[in-house]
């Protein structure tokens, strides 16, 4: 590689690798270095106000993972855990939730309106979950939604449908806070679905207790054209343990989580591993993204992380992992539906109140039709998501349905975010209105893998 190429600008600052500098470019780059130096400040050449505030930038923090509690081993190793039965198959087309589901939705809707939404803007700004939201979510029982009754949870049958409805209702308040409050329960649900007796009895009591541990599903990786089914994080068997190496990205609550479910490739097959945050070799750094910031997204680095053989969650033939990916995508679809509904509910009164050319802009077809299309595609997203969720709950094959729901929710969800901002015009672009946040959040739907599941 020539010197010139080494000095080339490509590969950083969002520049494609083939970018090159001409002489003026080099001069500007040099000037920029001067502008960045502390020297000019000491000489009083710049107003101090120019100090940019990056509260939680990539360089914001880099630490070991939370020390975490020591989970008391319990239960029988190798004995299958408790499994709830599938929901009954009725064979009747029906869009009515069960009474229990409706009750849950009502409670969570109230939570979303009264606690989550008011906290959303600040949580997005600081990339943290306020205690008020955390404790309210715990009070409602979110962490226990997918935990079998006999293990202290509230699930009598497969809870994918209930989980979907709850995620939707919560995301109507805020997607970032929804992810943050659903992430621990997602790990608990995973333990309920695939955990051995030992895993369930070791970890689940904490989720049913007062002090619910933060936890998250870490499946994403920072590579372009990432295929979640082929993780580059590896697990290698060494005696009675596995050694994990790799990097996981956009992991919610990483800084405080006490338990991770990490996806890694074991002999070429994707497998889930339970990794306690106190395990040596784990580091976490801030990885805030475009949106979903309240979830406290982090990058999780695994360097020779050694976990016992019984840390494997579920099957090692890839089936558990694939089901986990599908259930996680289902959760993201539900989040998209909830956020899309928030957009529709916000733009509807706006276009009727906002006047231009002497009448409400809602009286113009170009505006009204955008709202109509938001409503149509949103309902389509909802129906596809419900269909997949109902199949998952009934124990039917649901891979195709989730694939279709994700495809539609990613494309139309983003369109709804885009149109939401457009309909508000300049108001849509400023933080005085929440629509710009929904725009950022909705981009996550086609991107995110893991983090939450139903």
């Amino acid at each position, binding site marked *: 590689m020539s010197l010139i190429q080494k000095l080339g600008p490509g590969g950083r600052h969002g520049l494609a690798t083939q970018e090159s500098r001409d002489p003026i470019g080099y001069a500007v780059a040099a000037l920029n270095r001067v502008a960045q130096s502390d020297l000019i400040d000491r000489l009083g050449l710049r107003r101090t106000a120019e100090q940019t505030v990056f509260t939680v930038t990539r360089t914001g923090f880099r630490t070991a993972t939370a020390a975490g509690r020591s989970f008391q081993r319990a239960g029988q190793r190798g004995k299958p855990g408790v499994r709830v039965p599938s*929901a*009954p*198959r*009725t*064979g*009747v*087309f*029906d*869009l*009515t*939730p*069960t009474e229990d*589901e409706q009750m849950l939705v009502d409670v969570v809707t109230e939570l979303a309106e009264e606690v989550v939404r008011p906290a959303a803007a600040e949580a997005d700004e600081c990339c943290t979950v306020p205690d008020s939201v955390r404790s309210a979510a715990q009070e409602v029982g979110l962490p226990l939604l997918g935990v079998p009754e006999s293990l202290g949870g509230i699930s009598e049958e497969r809870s994918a*449908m209930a989980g979907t409805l709850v995620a939707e209702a919560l995301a109507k308040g805020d997607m970032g806070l929804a992810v943050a409050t659903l992430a621990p329960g997602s790990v608990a649900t995973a333990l309920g679905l695939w955990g051995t007796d030992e895993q369930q009895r070791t970890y689940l009591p904490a989720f049913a207790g007062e002090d619910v541990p933060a936890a998250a599903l870490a499946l994403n990786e920072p590579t372009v*054209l*990432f*295929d*979640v*089914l082929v993780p580059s994080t590896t697990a290698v068997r060494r005696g009675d343990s596995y050694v994990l190496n790799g990097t996981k990205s956009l992991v919610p609550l990483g800084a405080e989580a006490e338990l991770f479910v990490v996806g890694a490739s074991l002999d070429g097959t994707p497998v889930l591993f339970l990794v306690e945050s106190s395990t040596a070799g784990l580091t976490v750094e801030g990885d805030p993204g475009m949106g979903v910031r309240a979830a406290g997204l982090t990058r999780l680095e695994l360097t020779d992380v050694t976990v016992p053989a019984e840390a494997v969650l579920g099957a090692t033939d890839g089936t558990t992992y*694939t089901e986990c*990916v*599908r259930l996680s995508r289902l959760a993201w679809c539900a989040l998209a539906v909830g956020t899309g509904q928030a957009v*529709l509910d916000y733009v*509807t009164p706006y*276009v*009727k109140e906002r006047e231009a050319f002497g009448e*409400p802009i*809602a*009286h113009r*077809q170009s505006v*009204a*039709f955008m*709202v*109509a*299309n938001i*409503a*149509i*595609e949103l*309902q*389509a*997203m909802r*129906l*596809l998501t*419900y*269909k997949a*969720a*109902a*199949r998952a709950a*009934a124990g039917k094959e649901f*891979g*195709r*349905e*989730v*694939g*279709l*729901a994700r*495809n*539609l929710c990613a*494309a139309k969800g983003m369109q709804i975010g885009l149109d939401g901002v457009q309909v508000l015009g300049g108001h849509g672009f400023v933080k005085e209105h929440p629509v710009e946040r929904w725009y950022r959040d909705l981009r996550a739907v086609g991107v995110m893998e893991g983090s939450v599941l139903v």
Partner: protein
Amino acid sequence: MAISLEDPKKFRPLVSQAHQVAMNMLRPISRKYDRAEHEYPKELDMLAAMIDGLSESGANEGAGAAGVRRGEDGAKKDDGGVKNGANLASVMSIAEMCWGDVGLLLSMPRQGLGNSAIASVANDEQAERFAGVWAGMAITEPGTGSDSANITTTAVLDGDEYVLNGEKIYVTAGDRADHIVVWATLDRSLGRAAIKSFVVPKGTPGMRVDRLEHKLGIKASDTATIIFENCRVPKENLLGSPEIDTKQGFAGAMATFDNTRPLVAAMAVGCARAALDLTRSLLADAGVTVDHDRPAHLQHAAAAKLLQMEADWEAAHLLMLQAAWMADNRRPNSLEASMAKAKAGRVGSDITLSCVELCGSVGYSEAELLEKWARDSKILDIFEGTQQIQQLIVARRVLGLSSAELK
């Protein structure tokens, strides 16, 4: 009850029966009547007889447009008060038949959109009197398309008869049907509230079929221009109430559309699935298949397109089922009916046209049916309310605006 969006189990036999008919009766004559526009598909008489026989035997719940009726039919509930009834049966069997051929479905004796109008607004006496007829639907006029409140065909009461005068165009099955349901106004000065529908038997003096259209698609179906000149019908042939209720306005006549729009959505859903099924199989022969778990961007571009089309198709399909399910359970469904038709209409065009493109010259050539489906699908985004009219209806409902506010 619990949420489930599977096709109702009880209609599986009906759907598979319709599928066999579509495959073995309609597909073999599909191209024949696409080429021989205006020729009567005599094969359909046999089929109609079979469907009538099935209905008589009770084995066939509501296959076709005539099955759509919101009567007091004893409402047998399937479970926990939720009904899967004639509306769901109709959309499912119509989608299946249109997977066979849209034009031929529209030419099915005794299954016209006029039948659906009769079923929607007729009183019991009329429902009985017009049972078994084949009714076309005459709304559009040379100067009036989407603004159907503006029609100029008049109906004047003279003794015990209404006298109809005017010109109707684009009457589907207008030549072959034995009855026509005509929209006419009792008093133009009273606007939309004065618009009523009348059943006119063929052969009534003063009514004549003027000409047949040559069309882009659905050539198997005849599209007629019908002229009414001092055409007299008994006053009992006015469907619904003769009162001009300015408060109720247009709602009475428009209620027909709540029933027929899910049916047109079903036609688009069926036609699009025909294109999708064939394209999927042709692409599989060429080595391209869809993996629903892998990100679309990591798959063949044709597979990624197929995935997107499949998602859009499923969306239209589920919106269609939703609208029909609401009608079955006696819930107002104007909004959902329009949503279903809007989505199915545009998805039907996108899918059939994209399938032609994906399959290249195989898609474009008359050697396959893909190009035909791409022509047939277009009308489904136009009749019974264009894409734009559906969006207007959805927008007005969602925003709570009147037609005076949102024009």
